[in-house]
């Protein structure tokens, strides 16, 4: 981990195991499959179901500041708590949670490299009884939202028109081409298939090793460099609903150290439903082709 631009944002499974009873550390499991935690979880870890705890459940949006503060307070998290996030699917929604925590200015939040998959594969202990957090005595104070790491539709439209950013589509090749509208088994919540014109196809999983850990700095530089991403590039990552792209956002921002990278959480379920939005179909072109 030492070669990454910000190695302090990653911990390994050993670190988590050895901090299970550390009062300054809160370990949180955030899974795509919200039933996974109930099956068994790392001792001491609490769960944040992404679909109820990490979004506004009425308006399509991230948590409001007050809701975020309540979640932190109820989870026993103070402003100076070290929060370690992990989950299934190589940390998709753990990255989503980290992205929101950074929007609201939490200083020390980290990802457990390899996520739930590595914890299971290593045969580490699992508790089947849910962990109950003791709420913090002091109310958590979030910062004003930092939207410099979030791309909203007008910014994405402007960037697409002016070709001012490298647009990274992190979905599967079949979603990128328009062959399918959503991953199998998930609701097809868009009207059109394809991708934002000019986007590069770099499926999120290419950033991971088989054991779920992140690839080396060298491999990541080659992967994104081949798609035209440079150290000073402005990059917008998107997927279907914004969680897979938060994984890529994390890689680009913290492992590669890019300063100007945003997560477009509206993603394809916004763009693919817009009347009149330009859509491109078919396979990815190689970098440099227009």
């Amino acid at each position, binding site marked *: 981990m030492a070669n990454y631009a910000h190695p302090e944002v990653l911990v390994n499974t050993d670190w988590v195991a050895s901090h299970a009873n550390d009062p300054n550390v809160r370990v949180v499991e955030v899974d*795509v*499959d919200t*039933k*996974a935690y109930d*099956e*068994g979880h790392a001792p001491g870890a609490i769960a944040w179901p992404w679909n109820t705890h990490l979004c506004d459940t009425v308006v399509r949006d991230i948590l409001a500041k007050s809701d975020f503060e309540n979640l932190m307070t109820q989870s026993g998290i103070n402003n100076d708590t070290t929060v370690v996030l992990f989950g*299934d*699917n*190589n940390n*998709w929604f753990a990255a989503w949670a980290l992205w929101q925590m950074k929007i609201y200015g939490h200083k020390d939040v980290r990802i457990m490299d390899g996520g739930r*998959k590595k914890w*299971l*594969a290593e*045969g*580490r*202990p*699992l508790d*089947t009884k849910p962990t109950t957090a003791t709420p913090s005595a002091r109310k958590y104070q979030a910062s004003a939202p930092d939207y410099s790491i979030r791309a909203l539709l007008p910014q994405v439209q402007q960037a697409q028109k002016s070709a001012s950013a490298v647009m990274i589509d992190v*979905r*599967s*090749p*079949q*979603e990128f*081409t*328009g*062959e*399918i*509208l*959503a*991953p*199998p*088994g*998930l609701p*097809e919540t868009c009207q059109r*298939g394809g991708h934002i014109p000019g986007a590069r196809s770099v*499926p*999120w*999983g290419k950033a991971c090793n088989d054991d779920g850990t992140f690839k080396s700095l060298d491999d990541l530089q080659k992967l994104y460099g081949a798609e035209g991403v440079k150290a000073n590039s402005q990059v917008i990552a998107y997927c279907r609903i914004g969680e*897979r792209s938060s994984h890529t956002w994390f890689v680009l921002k913290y492992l590669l150290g890019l300063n100007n990278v945003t997560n477009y959480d509206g993603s394809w379920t916004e763009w693919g439903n817009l009347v009149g939005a330009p859509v491109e*179909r*078919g*396979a990815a072109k190689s970098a440099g082709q227009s």
Partner: protein
Amino acid sequence: MNPTNYSERKVEIDGWQVNLTTYQLGDKWHSKADNVSPGAALARTVADSREEAEAQALERARALLSRTKRNPV
């Protein structure tokens, strides 16, 4: 409890790549089928044996995958 006998293997169902993860926790076997590239979890099952858990997971995965519409590109 510690999970044991963790395994992963890739299988193809109707042209889709599926990743099948199985492990034992206590006297139960847990299996999960997910679609390798998009990564969505298709099925999660618990049974008394590895064979039973995996067969159930694959059956549910096949049912979901068969309903996924593929558009000509």
